[in-house]
């Protein structure tokens, strides 16, 4: 019977498709259902990947105009926005087809359609043509991901008022872009359009940007972004928006209450976060318990309260990150296959792909203080790193936090060029319980940016050599 599967996975994003791949590797039959029509989920279609394509091309454009003259290169630069978008579309197309190939390779049936859990062990899929197919599933994995969080009183039309999805596909460069939300999505997309010529203002409810990041990093990060031309209105909330004469009039007021003020914009990006997406799945009927924030409740093995139904990724608790979903997918399927799958939530990196990048793993200084852990700090500025000098990217620093007693690395926070790649070493160190000394005594190639990580590690015990 073709419609019987060991695992039926609802959702074809990084959580879902990696679950399908792992299932195939472990000899389980599986189906992976996604309603979008292309696989890869938010990440590949309207998230990580297209945004990185635009971040890359817009950075090159910005560099060509601003940096090249300082480096002895004369050019005339002209923006071809449709060409830039075409690159993005090409990349997304190649990668989504890559996912479909991987599903096929691992003998997982890729099904396009809307899935609903009819009963434990039964999944109904409504195809684009309205036909309904019922799958028998020994295990159901909910990997439906998340959706844009709505802003009360504001309707996203993906025209003038856009979510991240719309902001990745604007037809022209808006003169004024107002970004609601100072998190990584708002800052990345704000950066894209700032580089392409928009005046960008970020309105954030909290008194800081990038909540969750180490304070010291966040402060310096904001300074650098301000220097690049992004304006910030912190401790401010958006209470409404009007359209007037082809422009938007955005009404804001202090977060603590007070006098209202209006801001004009041509496009407004709502990037205040994401919420778990489980609508239409029939979870209430199946009896799957959700928490107050609408997340599927699971135990540490990704089991929900209903036997045979599992959940992973953005639709359950934890940071909404593609690689977190990926790790959970592997662990969840391993558990289903009777193996021991675990995810170490203390060692999941997070990256903001602006220029400079921000990357972090482990605990922030504030978290350590709150937990009463005695720690030591090692810090190293990229201005003292030779490679950073040669590539004219001296903004930022590496900050390493280690237990004062055991020297075990507890958190690493990097603001600087290539931070997203540099954090890998720190993640491995934390995963393996390494001490700052272990990193400090490990050879690092010269001249590389990675030396800054080592120098910061040395700094923890006070033997930084290059500063």
């Amino acid at each position: 019977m073709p419609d019987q599967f060991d695992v039926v996975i609802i959702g074809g994003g990084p959580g879902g498709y990696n679950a399908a791949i792992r299932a195939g590797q472990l000899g389980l039959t599986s189906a992976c259902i996604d309603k979008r029509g292309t696989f890869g989920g938010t990440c590949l279609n309207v998230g990580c990947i297209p945004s990185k394509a635009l971040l890359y091309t817009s950075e090159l454009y910005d560099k060509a105009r601003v940096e090249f003259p300082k480096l002895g290169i004369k050019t005339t630069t002209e923006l071809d926005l449709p060409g830039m978008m075409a690159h993005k579309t090409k990349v997304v197309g190649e990668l989504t087809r890559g996912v479909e190939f991987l599903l096929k390779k691992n003998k997982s049936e890729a099904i396009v359609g809307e899935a609903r859990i009819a009963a434990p062990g039964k999944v109904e899929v409504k195809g684009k043509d309205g036909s309904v197919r019922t799958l028998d599933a020994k295990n159901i994995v909910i990997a439906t991901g998340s959706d844009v969080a709505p802003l009360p009183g504001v309707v996203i039309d993906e025209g003038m008022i856009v979510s991240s999805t719309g902001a990745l596909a604007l037809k022209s460069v808006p003169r004024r872009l107002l970004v609601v939300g100072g998190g990584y999505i708002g800052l990345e997309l704000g950066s894209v359009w700032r580089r392409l010529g928009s005046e960008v203002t970020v309105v954030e409810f909290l008194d800081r940007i990038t909540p969750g990041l180490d304070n010291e990093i966040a402060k310096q990060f904001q300074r650098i972004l301000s220097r690049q031309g992004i304006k910030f209105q912190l401790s401010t909330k958006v209470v409404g928006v009007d359209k007037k004469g082809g422009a938007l009039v955005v009404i804001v007021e202090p977060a603590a209450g007070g006098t209202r003020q209006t801001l004009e914009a041509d496009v407004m990006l709502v990037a205040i976060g994401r919420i778990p997406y489980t609508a239409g799945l029939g979870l209430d009927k199946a009896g799957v318990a959700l928490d107050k924030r609408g997340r599927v409740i699971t135990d540490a093995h990704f089991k929900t309260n209903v036997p045979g139904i599992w959940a992973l990724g953005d639709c359950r608790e934890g940071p909404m990150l593609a690689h977190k979903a990926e790790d959970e997918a592997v662990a969840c399927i391993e558990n289903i296959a009777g193996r021991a799958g675990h995810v170490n939530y203390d060692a999941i990196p997070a990256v903001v792909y602006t220029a400079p990048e921000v990357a972090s793993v482990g605990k922030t200084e504030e978290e350590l203080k709150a937990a009463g852990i005695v720690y030591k700090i090692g810090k190293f500025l990229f201005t003292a790193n030779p490679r950073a000098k040669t590539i004219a990217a001296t903004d930022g620093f590496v900050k390493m936090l280690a237990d004062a007693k055991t020297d075990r690395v507890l958190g690493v926070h990097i603001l600087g060029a290539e931070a997203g790649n540099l954090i890998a070493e720190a993640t491995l160190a934390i995963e393996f319980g390494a001490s700052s000394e272990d990193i400090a005594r490990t050879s690092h190639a010269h001249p590389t940016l990675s030396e800054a990580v080592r120098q910061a590690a040395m700094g923890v015990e006070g033997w930084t050599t290059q500063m």
Partner: protein
Amino acid sequence: MSIDIKVPAMGESVTEATVSRWFKKEGDAVARDEPLLELETDKVTVEVPAPADGALQSISVQEGATVQVGTILGAIAEGKTGNASAPASAAKPAAKPVETPKPAPQAAAQALKTDAPVMPSVRRIAEESGLSPAAVNGSGKEGRVLKGDMLAALETRAAQRPAPQPAPVLSGPRPQAEREERVKMSRLRKTIALRLKESQNTAAQLTTFNEVDMSHVMALRAEYKESFEKKHGVRLGFMGFFVKACIAALKELPNVNAEIEGDDIVYKNYYDIGVAVSTERGLIVPVVRDADKLGLAQIEAAITDYGTRARDGKLKLEELQGGTFTISNGGVFGSLMSTPILNSPQSGILGMHKIQPRPIAIDDKVMIRPMMYLALSYDHRLVDGREAVTFLVRVKENLEDPQRLLLDI
């Protein structure tokens, strides 16, 4: 097919060895001639290569055990595919070795030999404190010992050590507290101990001293250093001069180059000079053969070569055997004066020392000269005092006036 791994023949006088280290674990893939384990003998370490391609099937003798030539160490499953990396737990104790070492779990030296990779900080702490990571419970991934685990274990160890008491009551045997560490003597150390004591028990040893003004040799060296090195490709050191000076003196005083064997005196009409070299494992004495027939450059080259290979543990057994006279240079460590112990059954050993500028009287004037004390320890059973003193005087004269060597006077 299973092929035994046996202790190979290691030279005429060597019959037993200690298994110092297995490089492979049971189940590991091995290629023919790939080193499987290291044996430590009285004089050298020998690597035992795999007799065939395949997998290491079994290890029958554990590290630290004493084995004899021909003992079966383990077996290779020929042609079998082995693990690229076997689990760290492998190696179970099997066939009884010739001599079972006492368990010494605290011995850092032993535990550091295990194959499991140790984190850099842990390695440092282990080396500095002598605390073996193997004796510490690891809290890391797969039981890995972390820096914090080591620090905590050190703290525990320190806490267990009783606080210094003003006057410990000395009654009965000392408690075997954690204040001590028991490490098995290496074979080399054991041999050194045995040989030295044997030497002292046999020969009637005493030492005579003299001093030598090194300014002439130093001037000669300074003048010809570059052209010598250019021509011969070796540095012109002092050792060659000393070897030459000694041989000239040995020729004049053959008793110093002889040995007692039973009721006979064996005179040797060849001059094989042992040159003591200090290595990490201990003192060893490679021998420069027929040194009387060698030029200065050949002697220097031989000594340099021995020094390098001694540090790498690559000296062959036969290179350490025999010898008719020994030169020992304590000066490299700064010794001003010492009484070397004879390298049995030889009858003489010259001790070189540090060259130090000292005021001396020359033609009733006080001059500052680079001076070195010379010591000759000798076996008084065979060598008379007059001979010993004359020997040293000849060495002194030859060095203070190197032209004598040329003229053979």
